[in-house]
C-alpha cells in the first residue's frame, strides 16, 4: 500500500463572516492553526465537539471552501478549485429532489458517461447492499431520513473514488443498520488502498473503523491530538467491545474528551 500523504493540511486558519447582523459584519475564527497529514490508504476519523470545524475541513479537502491562511494539499498539489478526485458524502444528504432514489444513485455514473444498462446494474447492487431494494422509484421526500442518508452514501461509493470524505454517513441510522453498514464499509475498504476521512460523533464507531483518530478541540477548532488506534485488522465490528485493546483505548479517548465537555458546560450556564 502507498504510504505517501493523500492529504496534507498545513497551518490552516479559516475566518467566516456571518451576514445576519445588519450593522456590523463581524468576522470570526472557525479553524485555528490546523495541521494534519492523512496518509494514503488509511482510514482516519475526526471526532470533536459540534461546531468545531470538521465539516469545514472536509469542505476544504473537496475544494469547496478556501482556507483563509495556510494550505491544503491533495496528493502533493495545493487544492485550488473543486477537487473531483475525492468522493464526498456531505453531512446533509443533498439528494436531488427531482430524481428518484435510483436516478440519484446513478447520477455520478451519468456524469462519467457510463452506459445506461451498466448504470442500472451497478446501482441495483449498491441499493441492495444498503437494504433499499424496492424503493428505487421513490423520490427523496418519499424516503425516511435514514433511507436518504443511505442513498447519499452509495451515490458516492458507486463510482469508487480513491479518497472518500464521509461526514457522519451513519448519523440518522439505527444501531442495527449502522453496524451492518460499518461492516460493509470495512469490507469494501480493506485491501482497496482507498483513503477514507470519516467524521463521526460515535467514539465506538471511530475506534471500530479507523487507523487514526483526530480529536478536535472546541471552537475555534484545532486538532488537539491524533491517536493511532491500537486494534488489529480485520476487525469484527459486531463484537468490537470484545477486542482486548478496546476498553483501555476507549477510556483514554473519553477522558481526553471530557476536558472539552467541562468547558462546554461552563460556557452553557
Amino acid at each position: 500500500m502507498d504510504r505517501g500523504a493523500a492529504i496534507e493540511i498545513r497551518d490552516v486558519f479559516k475566518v467566516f463572516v456571518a451576514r445576519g447582523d445588519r450593522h456590523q459584519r463581524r468576522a470570526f475564527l472557525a479553524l485555528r492553526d490546523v495541521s494534519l497529514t492523512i496518509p494514503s490508504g488509511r482510514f482516519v476519523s475526526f471526532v470533536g465537539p459540534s461546531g468545531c470545524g470538521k465539516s469545514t475541513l472536509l469542505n476544504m479537502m473537496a475544494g469547496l471552501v478556501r482556507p483563509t491562511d495556510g494550505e491544503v494539499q491533495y496528493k502533493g498539489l495545493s487544492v485550488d478549485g473543486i477537487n473531483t478526485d475525492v468522493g464526498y458524502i456531505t453531512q446533509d444528504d443533498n439528494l436531488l429532489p427531482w430524481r428518484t432514489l435510483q436516478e440519484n444513485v446513478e447520477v455520478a455514473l451519468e456524469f462519467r458517461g457510463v452506459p445506461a444498462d451498466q448504470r442500472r446494474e451497478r446501482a441495483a447492487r449498491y441499493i441492495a447492499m444498503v437494504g433499499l431494494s424496492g424503493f428505487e422509484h421513490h423520490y427523496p421526500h418519499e424516503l425516511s431520513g435514514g433511507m436518504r442518508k443511505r442513498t447519499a452514501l452509495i451515490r458516492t461509493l458507486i463510482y469508487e473514488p480513491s479518497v472518500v470524505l464521509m461526514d457522519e454517513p451513519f448519523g440518522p441510522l439505527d444501531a442495527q443498520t449502522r453496524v451492518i453498514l460499518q461492516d460493509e464499509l470495512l469490507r469494501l475498504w480493506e485491501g482497496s488502498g482507498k483513503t477514507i476521512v470519516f467524521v463521526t460523533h460515535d467514539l465506538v464507531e471511530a475506534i471500530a473503523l479507523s487507523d487514526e483518530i483526530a480529536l478536535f478541540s472546541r471552537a475555534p477548532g484545532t486538532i488537539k491530538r491524533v491517536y493511532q488506534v491500537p486494534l488489529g485488522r480485520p476487525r469484527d465490528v459486531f463484537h468490537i467491545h470484545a477486542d482486548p485493546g478496546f476498553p483501555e483505548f476507549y477510556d483514554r479517548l473519553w477522558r481526553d474528551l471530557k476536558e472539552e465537555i467541562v468547558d462546554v458546560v461552563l460556557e452553557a450556564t
Partner: protein
Amino acid sequence: MDALEMATGTFGAVEERGKRLLQRVESEERAQQRIEQRNTTLGRLAFGAAMLLAWELASGRLLDQFFVSKPSHIAAALWAMLIKEALLYHLRYTVTEALVGYAIGAGAGLVLGFALARSNFVYRIVEPFIVAFYGIPRIALAPLFILWFGIGITSKIAVAAVMVFFIVFINTIAGIRSAPVQFLQVARVMGASEWDLVRKVIFPAATPFIIAALQITVPQAMIGAIVGEFISSNRGVGHLISRAAGFLDTPGLFAGIFALLVVVLLMNQGITTLGNHLMRWNPKHGTVRDVP
C-alpha cells in the same frame, strides 16, 4: 401491549387487512385524479358559460352594445369569418408567427439566461441595457422592424420573439440563482461538467421559474404576432381584427379575438401539462392549501 396486539386478531387477519388497504388506496388514487379532472372541467365550463351569459344580458343594458357587442352576435360574426373571410387561413398564418416567435424568444431567453447568470459580472453590466431596451415602446421601433425584418412573416416573428424573450430571460436568471448551491457543489465534486450541471442540476432547479415564464409569455407571443401584423401585414388574424376595428365592426373584432383565444388556451394547456410533467417530483405542486 402484547395482549393488545393479540386482541386485534391473528397475524393472518392483519395481513389480509393490509392487502385490502393497498388495493383500496391504489384504486382511490386513480379515481381521485379523474374526479379532480372532471370537476375542473365542469367548473371552467360553468364559469365560462356564466360569463358569456352575463355578457349577453348586460350588453345593451349595462354595457354599450356598440363597444362590447354580445356573444350571440360574435358567434354569428365568427361563423361569417370562417366562411367568408377564410379565417382558418389567416389563423394559421398568425399562429405560425406566434409559435415560431415564441420558440425563438423563449429559446433565446433560456440560452442567454444560462449564459449570463453563470457569469455574474457580465450579467450585472448588461442587465440595465436589456431592461432599458424593454422600456422602448414597440411602436417607436416599427420603422426599424420594417427596415430590418421587412414586411413579411419575419417581422411578426421578430416582434413576438422580442415580447417573449425578456420575461423568459429574467425568470431564467432568477431560477438559476435559486438553484441550491449545495447541489451544485456536490455535483461538481462528483465530476459534473458545466453542461451536466446546467442540464441535470440547474435546469431542474429553475423549472418552476421557467414554466411560469413560459406560461406568462403564451399570450404575449400572440399579442406580439398581432402587434407585428398591425405594424405591417396583408393577412393574419391581426389583419382581420384591424379591419374590423377600422370598420367599427365590434362583433367582427371580438370574433377575431375569440379565434385567437382558442389557440392561446390550447398553448397554455400545453405549458401547464409540460410543467406538471417536469415537476411531477414536487410533492406540493398544486396542493398548497391542504398542508397535510
